[in-house]
């Protein structure tokens, strides 16, 4: 049969139909997403944002494992009601090291983008183990095993290497370490060194004493360390509100 580019030839040719359907539906995605990678203003220039320390990253992995994101978003939108309830709207810069990001538009529980430093460590432990013991109307499930499960620290190097492959600046070589010192300061740079990741993880958990028990390292230590960091890296008092509008 002679090929004609007519509706009929697409309809009777399954392979062609699939190929052309893929082309058509990817146009919307390509036009909306790809430009964000080369538009200058996508990520705001802002001080303070750094990749997660090994302990925080481990806590983040537990957060994702337990499916916290199915009820909690980490994205405060630029509306007055959200600002009054949760604080400053989220910046793109604040989730630039998130893989995967925790944005969302469905909230069964409250948004957690700025929950860091809002409550005490003790509260987080109590609330994760038995939410209704502090918030009577809560429908959040209990997570008692977080306090009972020993934290696995042995695979942290591999995790950081994987994140490095997708662009998070954890340092492997001396050169990368020096670059991190310049970019994030010496204290932060030490925490981003892949080779000392496991000892840094344990040291931070010991020093922070997140679950109130220094004698053993549990998953609770890691998730509380992560929650206490959320949204606390940028000091918004240093910026004029209008500054962030320049990036949009």
């Amino acid at each position: 049969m002679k090929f004609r580019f007519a509706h009929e030839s697409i309809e009777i040719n399954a392979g062609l139909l699939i190929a052309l359907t893929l082309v058509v539906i990817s146009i919307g995605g390509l036009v909306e997403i790809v430009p964000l990678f080369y538009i200058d203003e996508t990520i705001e220039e802002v001080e303070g944002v750094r990749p997660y320390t090994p302990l925080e990253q481990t806590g983040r992995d537990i957060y994702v494992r337990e499916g916290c994101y199915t009820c909690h978003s980490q994205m405060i939108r630029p509306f007055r009601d959200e600002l009054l309830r949760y604080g400053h709207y989220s910046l793109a810069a604040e989730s630039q090291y998130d893989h995967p990001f925790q944005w969302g538009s469905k909230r069964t529980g409250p948004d957690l983008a700025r929950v860091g430093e809002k409550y005490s460590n003790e509260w987080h432990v109590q609330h994760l183990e038995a939410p209704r013991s502090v918030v009577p109307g809560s429908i959040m499930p209990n997570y008692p095993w977080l306090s009972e499960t020993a934290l696995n620290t042995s695979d942290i190097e591999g995790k950081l290497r994987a994140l490095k492959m997708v662009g998070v600046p954890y340092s492997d070589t001396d050169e990368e370490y020096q670059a991190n010192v310049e970019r994030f300061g010496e204290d932060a740079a030490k925490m981003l060194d892949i080779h000392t990741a496991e000892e840094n993880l344990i040291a931070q958990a010991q020093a922070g004493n997140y679950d109130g028990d220094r004698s053993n390292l549990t998953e609770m230590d890691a998730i509380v360390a992560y929650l206490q960091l959320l949204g606390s890296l940028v000091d918004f008092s240093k910026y004029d509100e209008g500054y962030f509008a320049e990036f949009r």
Partner: protein
Amino acid sequence: MSDNNTQQQGNAVQTTGHAWDGDLQEFNNPLPRWWIWTFYATIIFSLGYWIIYPTWPYANTFTKGVGNTITFQNDAGEEVTTHWNTRSLLIKDMQTGEEATKQKAYLEKVNAASYEEILSDPDMMAFANSMAKVVFADNCAACHGPGGDLPEQAFGLYPNIADDAWLWGGTTAEIEQTITHGRNGYMPAFGKNLDDEKLEQLANYVLGISGHSVETDKAAAGEKIFQGQEGGCYYCHGADGTGLKSQGAANLTDAVWTVANVPGAVKEEDKVAAVKRVIKNGVSRQMPLWKSRLGEEQIKLLTLYVHELGGGK
């Protein structure tokens, strides 16, 4: 819609004219006219939208929209005009929006007035209560419970602020200080220095000074520990047991218990056990500071709300 139905029911149904496998045909039921025209209208609308709003990316930037700007004031008070975007829209909404302006008028009034003035003005108190109730629910209720009343299981973990006892002081100035800078509630654990017998004696003394019936010889021994160097309890709780506000130390002589769950104990020995446990393990409670999260007006409103909740001093 009705046209389509008649078409299908009647004999003369249009087909697309395609035929597969010799006799397999396809009905042609065109979309309703109104739907088609609405579809064309949205396409024409989008052309206007592309011009007026930021839409198309090009090179390393994007079209900013024509004749569509937002003007607001920056922190220095200068007027800034930007192309349309949701962030500028929010700033403008916070500065000149209808709801924000209404609220601002009240907030300025609250800001200018002293605590005494607001407390004696029913109109301002009504505003303070309605706004602070929401701020309290968003920020404070997670620990202190809705309405400042603790759920039973959280007894002792956080101070109940609906009662009449004030660990750190119940005047408006003291409450404001507590909210602004946070507090570290700390009592050392005496389990290492005092053996079980001495803990028992102390517990009896402490229960005795708040009017519980106790074993008098034990209480007398406990008094020596309390008032002496061995326990040194009087440093923070005072020689009379009424507590030093500067240390956040509880008044032990009243009927209110902030850590030891004496009200929840049924039998006398359970009460002693509850007090003993607190002396043995100590207390470490932390209230976060709120000045970095809440504005001055919000803290002022919360102060009033908390002051009223617990019958402030």
